[in-house]
């Protein structure tokens, strides 16, 4: 039977009073708990908290770690840290930020144009943090500021270590440079580890190995008064201050051999050019040159707007890493690889000959008549001679028979058309064309079509095909090692700063480039040996200007057309053409043939002469620098002081 409940005002009043009393009791208990807590904090633990509150006058200041050193493969220092003076501003000690910055600008210590950025940076930090506003003060600036220091409370000179590259622009594109940490960098970096750090790697090794080079920040406690200024003692008491030493960054041993690097840079000076040398037995990059270069010390110092513009607007583009990012038609340097491809697909045997009349026309096609670089032709050539004389007709013919897709598949094994995987960022892939590639690369339907004539050009490394100097050196190193392929690398070993132990990095082996018959390697290589040594070799005359090399050298020249001129026109001397229209001179080489220790690719943009004549001797010098003893080098220098500048046999191949 359901009961109907009626409001009973008296009972409800009583119920409320009981509950109110209960609530009051709970309330008193809760406040009692708070009071008990207060007694605990203020009476029992009083001394402890007083100490802590004193400790609040102790400020924690980060100590930036020393950045790891960068050395060449023999321990020669390429990047180190040098003391310098920088100007720092602490916001909470500055009365009027605008007046202070304007005052510094008036003294020509900071650029007035930088003030808005500086202000933003200063405001984004905590008020007691010292923010660097000028990175490297010259002696003169130091004196100028010191004289009027009292006018700028909150601005201090602080000695710091900054990055210093003792060899200046040498190997700059491999080593890279450091610069002030940007907003973009902040997103990438673990800022806790960067407390107190002002510089970070921007390119090359400095960037790619930032995590090894940076180290871990330490800290020290500083005693500060209420204004945040550093003091030595509280009254008579000198408190004990904690300090954790920073952990320096790890040192890097590069694969670069500075002797080789220097020789290559010397030889290419004054040109827009690049050279890459690789040890075929492990992928070590022995030299990595891109000229012109620039002085990385500028960036660590904090460069002015004018300096930056001068660098970026220089038509020779010194900041551009040609070795890594420059893509050039490989020209005839690709012929030894093309020969191997032809053997692999059974298009020719090593001893099959083609008769070269000096020109060639595609059988049955509507293709134009193509002229060999040697107008009178090479006569009957087998594979070895075709490479040695760089006979275009032979390679047009085999390429035409192979077809572009088979060429693509075979040459891809040597790393063309893909990143080599070198351990710095920004590598370009170049183009290893195929029908598929052309379909993707072009928009209009007719441009997407692959014409047989396109394939013919590929046969001599022209047309759509491009490669970086790094890729060429890598491909030649692979050929020299009979197909064994190693990922190119710039860092050989890392010395751990904490333990002092040097850890050698294992070379990274890539999938081999394969041939059906291993003896074919020797056919291609024999052709390259003839290039440098046989009387009919295109480069012998130039290579032997410094005497016969005391090792067996294999090489191949190449010329990359910048400007399409009619074949007959190209017979004119290159020097008569406008400089920027001249062909690029290329040369690839390796030695000793019996046990290859170094493979090199040299590219000189818009060279005054052809590949053999101009790039060949440079390649030779690079090989010499690595393979000869200092005595041998000195002896050679004495015998052949200056290679003759006389133009030799016409070789515009």
């Amino acid at each position, binding site marked *: 039977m359901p009961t109907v409940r009626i409001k009973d005002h008296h009972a409800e*009043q009583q119920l409320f009073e009981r509950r*109110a009393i209960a*609530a009051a009791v709970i*309330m008193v208990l*809760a*406040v009692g708990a708070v009071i008990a807590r207060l007694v605990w904090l*203020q009476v029992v633990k*009083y001394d402890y*908290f*007083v100490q802590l509150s004193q400790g609040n006058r102790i400020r924690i200041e980060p100590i930036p770690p020393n950045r790891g050193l960068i050395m060449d493969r023999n321990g020669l220092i390429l990047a180190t840290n040098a003391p310098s003076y920088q100007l720092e501003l602490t916001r909470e000690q500055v009365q009027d930020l605008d007046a202070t910055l304007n005052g510094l600008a008036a003294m020509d210590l900071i650029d007035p144009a930088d003030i808005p950025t500086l202000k933003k940076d200063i405001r984004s930090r905590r008020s007691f943090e010292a923010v660097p506003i000028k990175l490297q003060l010259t002696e003169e600036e130091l004196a100028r500021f010191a004289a009027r220091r009292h006018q700028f409370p909150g601005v201090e000179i602080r000695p710091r270590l900054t990055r210093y590259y003792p060899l200046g622009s040498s190997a700059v594109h491999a080593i890279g440079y450091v610069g002030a940490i940007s907003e973009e960098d902040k997103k990438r970096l673990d800022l806790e580890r960067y407390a107190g750090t002002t510089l970070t790697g921007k390119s090359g090794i400095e960037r790619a190995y930032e995590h090894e080079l940076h180290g871990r920040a330490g800290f020290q406690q500083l005693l500060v008064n209420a204004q945040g200024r550093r003091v030595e003692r509280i009254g008579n008491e000198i408190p004990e201050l904690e300090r954790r030493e920073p952990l320096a960054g790890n040192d890097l041993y590069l694969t670069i051999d500075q002797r080789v690097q220097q020789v290559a840079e010397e030889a290419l000076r004054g040109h827009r050019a690049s050279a890459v040398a690789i040890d075929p037995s492990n992928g070590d990059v022995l030299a990595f040159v891109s000229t012109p270069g620039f002085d990385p010390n500028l960036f660590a110092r904090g460069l002015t707007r004018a300096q930056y513009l001068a660098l970026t607007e220089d038509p020779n583009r010194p900041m551009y890493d040609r070795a890594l990012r420059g893509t050039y038609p490989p020209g005839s340097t690709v012929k030894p690889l093309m020969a191997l491809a032809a053997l692999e697909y059974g298009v020719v045997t090593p001893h099959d000959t083609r008769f070269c009349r000096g020109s060639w026309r595609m059988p049955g096609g509507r293709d134009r008549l193509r002229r060999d670089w040697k107008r009178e032709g090479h006569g009957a050539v087998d594979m070895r001679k075709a490479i040695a004389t760089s006979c275009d007709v032979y390679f047009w013919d085999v390429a035409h028979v192979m077809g572009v897709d088979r060429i693509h598949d075979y040459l891809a094994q040597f790393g063309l058309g893909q990143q080599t995987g070198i351990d710095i960022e920004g590598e370009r892939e170049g183009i290893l064309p195929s029908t598929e590639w052309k379909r993707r690369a072009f928009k209009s339907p007719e441009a997407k079509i692959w014409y047989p004539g396109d394939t013919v050009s590929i046969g001599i490394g022209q047309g759509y095909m491009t490669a970086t100097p790094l890729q060429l050196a890598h491909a030649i190193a692979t050929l020299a090692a009979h197909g064994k392929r190693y990922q190119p690398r710039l860092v050989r070993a890392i010395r751990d700063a904490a333990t002092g132990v040097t850890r050698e990095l294992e070379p990274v082996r890539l999938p081999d480039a394969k041939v059906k018959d291993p003896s074919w390697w020797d056919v291609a290589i024999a052709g390259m040996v003839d290039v440098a040594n046989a009387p009919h070799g295109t480069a012998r005359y130039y290579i032997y200007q410094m005497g016969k090399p005391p090792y067996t050298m294999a090489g191949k020249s190449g010329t990359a057309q910048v400007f399409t001129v009619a074949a007959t026109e190209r017979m004119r001397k290159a020097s008569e053409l406008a400089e920027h229209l001249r062909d690029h001179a290329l040369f690839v080489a390796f030695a000793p043939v019996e046990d290859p220790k170094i493979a090199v690719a040299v590219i000189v943009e818009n060279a005054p002469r052809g590949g053999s004549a101009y790039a060949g001797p440079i390649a030779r010098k690079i090989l010499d620098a690595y393979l000869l003893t200092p005595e041998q080098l000195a002896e050679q220098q004495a015998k052949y002081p200056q290679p003759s500048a006389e133009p030799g046999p016409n070789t515009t191949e």
Partner: protein
Amino acid sequence: MSYESLETSRAQRTLTGTARLLLALHLDGPLFIGLCLVGAVGTIVVFSASGSSVGFLKAQVLRFLLGLGAMIVLAQVPPRVIRTATPWVYLVGLILLVLVAITGDIAMGAQRWLDLGIVRFQPSEIMKLAVPLACAWYLHERPLPPSLPSLLVLALGIGVPTLLIAEQPDLGTSLLVAAAGGMVLLLAGLQVRYIASVIALLVPVAFVAWQFLLHDYQRQRVLTFLDPQSDPLGAGYHIIQSQIAIGSGGIFGKGYLNGSQAQLEFLPERSTDFVFAVIGEEWGLIGLVTVLVLYLFVIGRSLYLATTAHDTFSRLAAGSLSLTFCVYVFVNTGMVTGLLPVVGVPLPFISYGGTAMVTLMAGFGILMSLCAKRKLVSR
């Protein structure tokens, strides 16, 4: 002798005059004085906590006076009018909350404000009063202790605004709103078995909230509360610094304007949520206990007034408002002393800040109206 007695009687006359005035304005004398004392403490402390800012001082005084005005005005509204208006105010508040959820302004990463053109305004503040009043209104005609169906309706009426506010996100206010509603239920005689089952339910609800409802920063606050040292320069910084401030104050304090924690700006939010620590540092245990006793007096007096109210609505509403005030005090002091996690609840009448002060004063105005001794004729 006669001179002396004359003096006495003059003083008495003044007192009686004031008492008459208060009575005529439906204001409760002891409660009024208690509130003014707390407000005075607030102004003195905020001046120090703001780094001796006269601007802060003026603004604080002005807000307190504005609050007093609101209280006096609301005390004049007859209880029946308040009761009749209650459901409408609640509905409007709820609609505004939904509007905020859809279109609200984003201030400091949280969506709490509604821009009404002239003023920007936080609907969650209305709900601090509207929710307990609405619960009392619902129970007014119903027999107590409430039946299960009534309880479910009430749970919904409290839960929806609580969740809407929690999602803004404003954990502190949502807890206060839920507490205000819950207080009505407790005072209405909610059976102990329900209380027990709600507590049992809280465990899984807390789990779900932790997993899905809480924002990262809210979770971080709880974690940091459990172990402040885990993040001494980040989220644990507030708790550590405020305990240092209180602890180093000792029994007598470092003296007004002399707290190094507060004055050297080591203590964050020192004029708002963490003002209690400033009192502790500068006035010591003595100062804090004095403030707590003042609060206890205010709460005790309002709770007593609630028991004198004539009908269910008035009783429950007044009781809930006074207990909610107590929750304010406890949550803030608990958080500043490290007993509770950091939720953004200001210390009533002392923390620098506008809306909360006015809302609280309005609450006391309503309470005074509901509990005023009125001549039967006037009713």
